[in-house]
Structures are given as C-alpha cells and as structure tokens.
C-alpha cells in the first residue's frame, strides 16, 4: 500500500489524495460497460420475463429466435447489407482518400468536406430524402437501395480513417517504386496499401458496423422481405419488451465485440 503515498504522475498530490478520482472513474467505467454486458446472462433466462440473475437457465429465447423465419430473414438481410456496404464503401472510400490526398488541387479540400457531410447532416434528413428518391425510383425495400444509402453513411468513416493513415505515410516510398518503373497502380497495391492495411481493415469493419447497426434509414427504405434486424428490433421495442430481443442483442454484442477485437489485434501488430 506504499504506492498510495507516492505522487500521482506530474501532479503534486499523492494517489491517496486522489482516491476519489479513481473511485469515480471506476464507477463511470462500470456504468459504461455493465448495462450492455448484463443483457447477455439475461438472454439465457428460462422465465417469461427478463430477470437477473436468471433463476433457471435455458436457451428458449434463442430457440424462439431461430424458430422465427422473420427474424432469420432479417438477420440475413442485415449481414448481407453490412457486407455489401463494406465491399462498396471501403474501395471507393480508399480511392477517394488516396486521390484527394495526392492531388494538390484546390478542389480536393472541398470534395473532402462534401464526402464527410453525411456525418454532419442529421440522419433523419438523409433518411427521408433517400426514401423520397427511392419512392420515385421504385427502389424502396430493395437490398440495392439499402446498400447505396448505407454506403454514403459509411464513406465519411472510411475517408477519415484511411486519410489519417495516408497523412502519416511517407510517400517517398511510392515515389521510389514508381521511379524504378512500377505503374502508379502497382506502386499503390504493392508498396502503399500493405503499409496502410491496418487502417483499411479498421475502415472496413467500421463500414460493416455502420450498416449492420443502422436503424433510421433502414426504417424508411427497408421492409418486407428485406427488413433489417435493427428495423424489426426497433419496431418490437416500441410495442413491448420481448425477451427474444435479449437473445438477438447478445448476438449483436458478439458481432461488434468481434469487430472491436479484430480492430485491436490489427492495430497492435502494427506497433
């Protein structure tokens, strides 16, 4: 317990004098994580209502989820939309980040701002705008429409993450490759891309999650056979508290923690 009386960092006070700060930070961190984590054991409850800790354990809510074709179809739609959004947003976002970074044109700055506006415009406005456009184009309730709409929401993240990586990348390496005869494309693919790959992977994961977790746009432009998981969850939350949602939530927590762990692993191997 001697560390308590040592000075805390560059401040002039000891750890003991700052115990209140540690306690407060601990409580806040607990409050940040606990509510999400607590859903997991609750989803294995055998009772009609959600309880913690569950008196009896069972998989009945998972069986209920798996037995409902509607939920399964929605899960498939969400996964498909997420993967397709990732596959569209990552390459075109990376291309844009690279092009805007390399081109010294005065337009580049403005195009960058244009590409990150979807992050600043309230999502509800994008949602009704896209809905209105899709009604005219007969694209409501199609997977294609959903993916296109989610792509513009994911683009700002890809642009920011990949753009930041390009800023700290030494372009002389690509210059060297090109002066030795590699085409720009080859130099990018074999020299630049391998060095920024961690950021590209992070960007791709973020693009996937953007689509997978998105509610508002999906509420307007997805429906019928192409309803997303979040849309169905949101609708059933408005009616009542169905324990099936707890099992679906658990699955979604697993999906996003996997993405986070992947991102952390890729990030670590860099350093």
């Amino acid at each position, binding site marked *: 317990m001697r560390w308590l009386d040592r000075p805390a960092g560059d401040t002039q006070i000891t750890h003991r004098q700052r115990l209140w700060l540690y306690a407060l930070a601990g409580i*806040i961190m607990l409050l940040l994580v606990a509510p999400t984590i607590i859903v997991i054991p609750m989803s294995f409850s055998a009772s009609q209502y959600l309880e913690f800790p569950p008196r009896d354990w069972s998989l009945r809510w998972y069986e209920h989820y798996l037995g409902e074709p509607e939920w399964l179809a929605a899960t498939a739609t969400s996964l498909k939309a997420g993967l397709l959004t990732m596959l569209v947003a990552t390459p075109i976002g990376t291309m844009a980040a690279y092009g805007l970074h390399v081109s010294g044109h005065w337009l580049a700055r403005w195009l960058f701002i244009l590409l990150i506006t979807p992050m600043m415009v309230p999502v509800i406005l994008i949602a009704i705008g896209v809905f209105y456009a899709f009604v005219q184009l007969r694209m409501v309730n199609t997977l294609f429409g959903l993916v296109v709409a989610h792509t513009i929401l994911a683009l700002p993240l890809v642009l920011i993450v990949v753009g930041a990586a390009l800023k700290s990348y030494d372009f002389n390496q690509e210059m060297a490759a090109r002066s030795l005869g590699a085409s720009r494309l080859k130099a990018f693919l074999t020299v630049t891309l391998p060095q920024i790959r961690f950021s590209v992977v992070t960007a791709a994961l973020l693009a996937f999650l953007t689509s997978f977790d998105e509610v508002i746009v999906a509420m307007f432009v997805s429906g019928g056979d192409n309803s997303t998981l979040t849309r169905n969850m949101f609708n059933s939350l408005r009616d009542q508290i169905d324990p099936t949602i707890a099992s679906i939530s658990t699955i979604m927590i697993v999906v996003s923690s996997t993405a986070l762990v992947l991102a952390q692993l890729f990030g670590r191997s860099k350093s």
Partner: protein
Amino acid sequence: MIAVEHAAADTAPNADELHRQSDRERWAMLGLASPAVLTVLVIMVLPVGWLFYLSFIGESGGFSLENYGRMLESKAYGRIFWTTFEVSFLTTGICILLGYPLAYFLAQLPRRAAALCMLTVLLPFWTSLLVRTYAWLVLLQRKGLVNTWAIDLGLWDEPVALVHNMTGTLIGMVHIMLPFLVLPLYGAMKAISGDYVRAAANLGAGPTAAFWGVFFPLSLPGLFAGALIVFVLCLGFFVTPAVLGGGKVIMVSMQITNNIELFFNWGAASALGVVLLAITLGILLAASRLLRLDAVLGGGH
C-alpha cells in the same frame, strides 16, 4: 537556389509539356474520388435539395412559406424545439461532468492500463446503439433491476418511473454520447506535456492552481470539440428518445417521422428537416471559427 531551379524549369524547352502533365495528373487523381463523390451527390445532395424545394410548397401546390410559418405559430412545434434543445444541453452537460474526470484518469494511467481501461469506452462505442437502448429499457423498467435493487437496499420504497420519461431518455443518451466526448478529450489531454504542470509547480503553484491555471485551459480545445460533437449528435437523435422517452419526449427528428408516417405531410417534414439542418450547420460553422473542424471530426476516431 530554389529560384534558380524555377527559372531553369521555365526556360526549359519542355516546360509547357511538364506543366500540362502535372495538371493532367492532378485531375486524374481527383478523378479517383469521383465514384464516392457521385454516390454522395446522387443519394444525399439531390434528395436533400429536393426536400428543401418541397418545404416551400404549400397545400395549394404553389410557393408558400406556410410550412415555416406553422413552426413559428404553433405551440406544439415550439415545445418540440424546446425539448430538443433541453435534451441536447442536459446530455452534453452531464457528459462533460462525467467525461472530464474519466478522460483525466485515463490520460494519466500507464500505457498498458490505459489501453485496458480504454476498452470500457470503446466497447459501448462499437456496440449497436439499439442494443444499448434496449439494455437500459430492461434495467430501468418498473420491475427492472435498478428498481428491484434500490428497493432491496432501501433507497426508495416503491418502484420509481425511471423510463418512458425524460429521466430514462437522459440516462440512455448520456450512456451513448459519453464515448464521443471522452475520445477527443483523451487525445487532447495526452498531447499536453507533463512539463507544463511540472513547470507550474516549480514556479510555486500548488496542485489546485497548477490544474486550473495550466492543465485545464490546455485541455479546453479537446473538451470543446467533444462537447460540440455530442451536442450536434443529440440535436438529430431519434432512436433513444423514441424508445426510452415513451412518447413523452418528442424531439424534432421524431416529429419529422410522424409527419411522414402518420400525416403524409412531406412539406411540413421537409421544413422541419431544413430547420434542423440549418441549426446543426450553423453551430458547426460557428464552432469552426473557434477551432479547426477537421481536428474535431478526426478526433472521434
């Protein structure tokens, strides 16, 4: 030296050709952004522009300001805007009160411990907002965990209405917004060199004076950036107030949805959307005069 090189380049026989080539190259590189730019133009800018036009069309089908006039006259709309600002201000305020000590704590931890504790901020950041909202709905309901435990502990005697009202909305919103404040603030605090605080101590400042006189002012840009992100995100929030507010907390985005889903009134919905966008962009623009906007946007990730 450089001037000499320039002069040489200008007089070189192939100067024009080189100039044209580099010009072409710059446009070609700009062209790489065209798929992304085209998607954003077609899917966002055009439709939102169309909504802008719709907001000026009245029931008669001609140009009119009635959609905006309604917002000024109707008490219901005034209340909705008031609620939106109230929720946004309170959420931002609580986030600052909780987020500042947390970021300060994290910024002073050794690297490994900080990375571990940072996971508690990142996990909610990466988890679906709908799942987190649902978790609070479960915890805060009448027979939920919080009420049960509080009654067992003797904090209160009867179940308290913690959800389907403003309290529940604020709890959920703060939980969702806190990482958006902590991440940029943590970055800003990490960038403050310990030398400043040590120098302050050398010059005779006590711990309190060193903190408030030196550390706190230096961390303000980060705090401001985080608070700005939180406030702007709150203004357009939909899911959490819709689920945890139980119909009692109506924000602008929810009224927009109602106008479309219940009343099919595109003009009214568009006008509300335009006003919401104008407020959001106005705040961002005003803030960008005070600090670099790209630093704010890059800070969250």
